């Protein structure tokens, strides 16, 4: 079942104006740990500690400062910050459409489902058009005091809204300044053959979150007072550059 409605708004572009309800599409479950004091297992709390007094400072005595130079701050009041929040217009404004495959996965943040809130025919028409044209709408909207950039897409018969990261939040791969190495055609050919051999269809259901289950087992074992065998992590020996072709060929032989 999809998550509950978390927001309502309208998809708008051209003559289209469709009321929709936003639902969460992702739900992460993870085992939670708490931090304890070693000697008596008292649960520790995270607190804001004054660097000068070394004592916790309650929320009402905290101020937000922007550091203009070392140790010098501009104080910004919560009310001033509140005023920078975008006005919630309830409109998901589509600015343009792009081919879905053009969207760089590095920009994708979080997915939501959009349920039609009346005007079903128009909704279905938009789903059909986007699907046939393999298009996604690039849109902006304001929700929960923040402005969002997103991609409007279809997922079968339903619309999905994926929030996108802003460009200056994505670090460009070019800034990593990686050195180029020359490779022989032979190496590339054997490499491609190997990858072809190892290719399978994408079936995410094959991969369970076994780690959570193992962690749960570990916790239960410990709770029963059983001893836990500690295993050392394994680090593989890197393939030496002059042995690369040899390793590729041996791999190919193994899988072929």
């Amino acid at each position, binding site marked *: 079942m999809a*998550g*509950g*409605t*978390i*927001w*309502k708004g309208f998809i708008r572009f051209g003559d289209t104006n469709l009321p929709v309800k936003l639902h*969460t599409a*992702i*739900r*992460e*479950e*993870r*085992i*939670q740990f708490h931090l304890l004091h070693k000697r008596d297992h008292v*649960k520790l*709390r995270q607190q804001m500690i004054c660097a000068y007094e070394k004592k916790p400072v309650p929320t*009402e005595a905290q101020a937000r400062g922007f550091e203009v130079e070392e140790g010098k701050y501009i104080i910004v009041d919560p009310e001033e910050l509140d005023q920078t929040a975008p006005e*919630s217009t309830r409109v998901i404004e589509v600015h343009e459409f792009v081919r879905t495959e053009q969207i760089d996965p590095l920009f994708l943040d*979080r997915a939501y489902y959009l349920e039609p809130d009346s005007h079903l025919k128009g909704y279905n028409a938009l789903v059909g058009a986007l699907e046939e044209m393999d298009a996604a709408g690039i849109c902006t909207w304001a929700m*929960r*005091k*923040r402005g969002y950039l997103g991609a409007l897409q279809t997922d079968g018969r339903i619309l999905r809204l994926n929030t996108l990261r802003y460009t200056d939040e994505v670090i460009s791969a070019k800034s990593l300044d990686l050195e180029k190495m020359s490779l022989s055609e032979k190496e590339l050919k054997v490499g491609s053959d190997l990858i072809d051999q190892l290719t399978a269809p994408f079936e995410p259901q094959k991969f369970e979150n076994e780690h959570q289950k193992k962690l749960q087992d570990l916790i239960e074992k410990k709770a029963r007072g059983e001893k836990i065998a500690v295993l050392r992590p394994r680090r593989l020996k890197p393939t030496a550059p002059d042995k690369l072709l040899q390793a590729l060929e041996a791999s190919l032989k193994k899988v072929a």
Partner: protein
Amino acid sequence: MSRKVVEIAGRRLSLSNLEKDLYPSYGFTKAHILEYYRRIAPFILPHLRDRALTLKRYPEGVEKDFFFEKRCPSHRPEWAKTAEVIPDEGEQMTVCLVNDLETLMWVENLASLELHVPLARTGSPETPDSMVFDLDPGDQANILDCARVALILRDLLSRLRLASCLKTSGKKGLHVYVPLNRKETTFEDTKKFSRAVAKIMQNNYPDLVTVKMAKEYRKAKVFINWSQNDSSKTMVCVYSLRAREKPVVSFPLAWRELENLAGKGDPEKLQVMHSEAVRRAKKQGDLFREVLVKKQRLPHL
């Protein structure tokens, strides 16, 4: 550690440490707490329903340390209802919804003496069901001063054709709620409105009222905290126990009752204890029901 397995509505729940005294100077154990919430359940559950619960847990009792837990603990029973929420700052998280008796019993087994909930439901996090004025007395002021402010506030609101409901905070203050229950009214609206009201109260009663949070301004005055009208804030739920020396409840009062009590000059008379809370709720019904059902529009916005 003692354990007891109970079955509620066909669901099994293991209760632990029932004999632990969580209000030691009064003598009120976890068993007493579970019993209080079991008996008050028909009244408190409608007010908790579909709201993201913030647990305020006192594992070692009210005299020791507590901690807040906004996320629903991952060791919850599989039948416990949850919802996904996105806070203004931060990541999406899973929260507990206390919609039935068994979940209420489960969170109380975690020693979550106080139950805090937002003014909006998880399905519509930006539309509060009510607007609140949190009246908090500063040093040298008390709940009777809050009562004076609450009565003026009630009169002012009723001149604007707005009905309001009152409850004790269970600590030193009073909470005035204005039912809204309209999906068009947002926190932006309630914030704007409540701030204007608080300011006019301060301008007209400068010796009694302040809207400034800083301690030095609050001396001998009642602080009207309008900023609770925010999606990220929570209020202690009506009928929740409070972690004071004694098991006092945040309890609804009729306005007439407040008028009577305010004249008597005994601040303790305004406080409602656990046993009295159950008795009175059973007799008079839910005095806070209007907060959930009455539809009102904020004028002049």
